């Protein structure tokens, strides 16, 4: 999932796009599952150089912290 977001730096990824990257097109992925993944990923990235920004209704953006 992180790979998917790194692959498109500075761009907003919708839940559907993330689900297609993570699970492949065959599997039925609920948006809840993506939310859980994002939550876990965000915890793991804490203290790192990047963070995930949420846009309600739109998707997620991986942002590099400047400091």
């Amino acid at each position, binding site marked *: 999932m992180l790979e998917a977001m790194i692959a498109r730096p500075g761009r*907003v990824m919708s839940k559907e796009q993330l689900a297609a990257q993570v699970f492949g097109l065959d599997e039925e992925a609920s948006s809840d599952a993506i939310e859980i993944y994002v939550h876990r990923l965000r915890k793991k990235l804490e203290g790192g150089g990047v963070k995930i*920004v949420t*846009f309600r*209704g*739109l998707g997620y953006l991986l942002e590099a912290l400047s400091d």
Partner: protein
Amino acid sequence: MTDSSSLRGRLLRRLALLLALILLVSSLSAYWSARHAADTAYDRTLLASARAIADGLYTTAERLNANVPYVALDTFAYDSAGRIYYQVLDVQGALVSGYEDLPPAPAGTKRTEDYPALARFYDAEFRNQGVRVVSLLQPVSEPGVNGVAEIRVAETQGARERMARELLLGTLLRMGVLSLSALLLVWLAVSAALRPLETLRRRVAARTSDDLQPLSAVGMPRELRPLIDALNQFNDRLHNLFERQSQFIADASHELRTPLAALKARVELGLRAQEPAVWRSTLEEAAHNTDKLTHLANQLLSLARIESGARAIAEGGAQRLDLSQLARELGMALAPLAHARGIALALEAEQPVWVSGEPTLLNELLCNLLDNALAHTPSGGNVILRVLPSAVLEVEDDGPGIPAEAHERVFARFYRHSNKGAGAGLGLAIVGEICRAHQADISLHQAQPHGLLVRVAFAAGEACVKG
């Protein structure tokens, strides 16, 4: 000139049909009355012949004899078409004189009421030709003979038919001449009546392309007034359109001239300076001003594009579009920019909402609304993009908003509500024009607790259609 679109041809065809119908009916009735006239005339002479024969009846040795006077059969001599047959029967019904197989009156033939005689007229067949027969009953009261004798005189139909035919032909000829002259008169009358139309056509055709003076209705028939009024209204609309466009060009040149003059002054000032640092700041400012000019030029182009887009919609070129999809794509594209400015951008769109429209124009509309919202929202603020199932699009921000009394004016071209923005005051004018092209209603509202809510309501009939 007889094609279906010609008024004259249509009128003449209908009239010709009507006249033909009248001609047919009147010919039938003329023939019928000619036959009746012939019958009346010939029946009288037929009865006279029968009476002449009756006068010649005499009795010898208790037997009835007939002395048929030549004059009785000569009545028709002047007419070579007619032939006369006669028959005299005595009181027992036995043949006295004449042709023995002359047919009797059919049962139920009434005696004539036209003449004071016991006479009956009927049509019959004799020797393979149609004959008209009179049967006269003559009472005989002589010694030895007492009863009623019968005299039949028959005449071939030829003469009557010829007379009827002549009468009919005369009638037909008169009617035909009458019909033809009626058609000719109508042709001339229609031509005369259509002349004002031709005059009007010539007057319109003779105009120069920029002559938009209203057409004069003086001297025109009342029936043409609505057409002239409609043409003049169309003229008015064209006139307004031209006025608006030349006004726009004037405004646009004015808007372009001011920043260009500022740019030129700045550059000249920089040229006079000697220090490289001043050159640098001059160039930086010039680049910034050029950006603004580019933005302005782009917006002017957009406005020009809307005209052709609106024409495409009016000509049926609209497509079915999902507003939610459009909002999502644009939201995702602008989210990084919003984030960079410290604004939280959110989308509220639950389901596909279909409207019919022109995709580049709708994209332009949404882009302008979002740009405006992002420009007027301070860092830390929120911008919400909303698509409602009733084909309503909303952009809400929690910036300072626009006071209600200025809501109307913001759609005017080159109007700026505040001076701090970089825009030329064309953004909302573009939005307004796009809404007009889509027949969508745009309204501004006060967001709670503060901020601006722009609502675009598309025609409800075009929404909700799933497919």
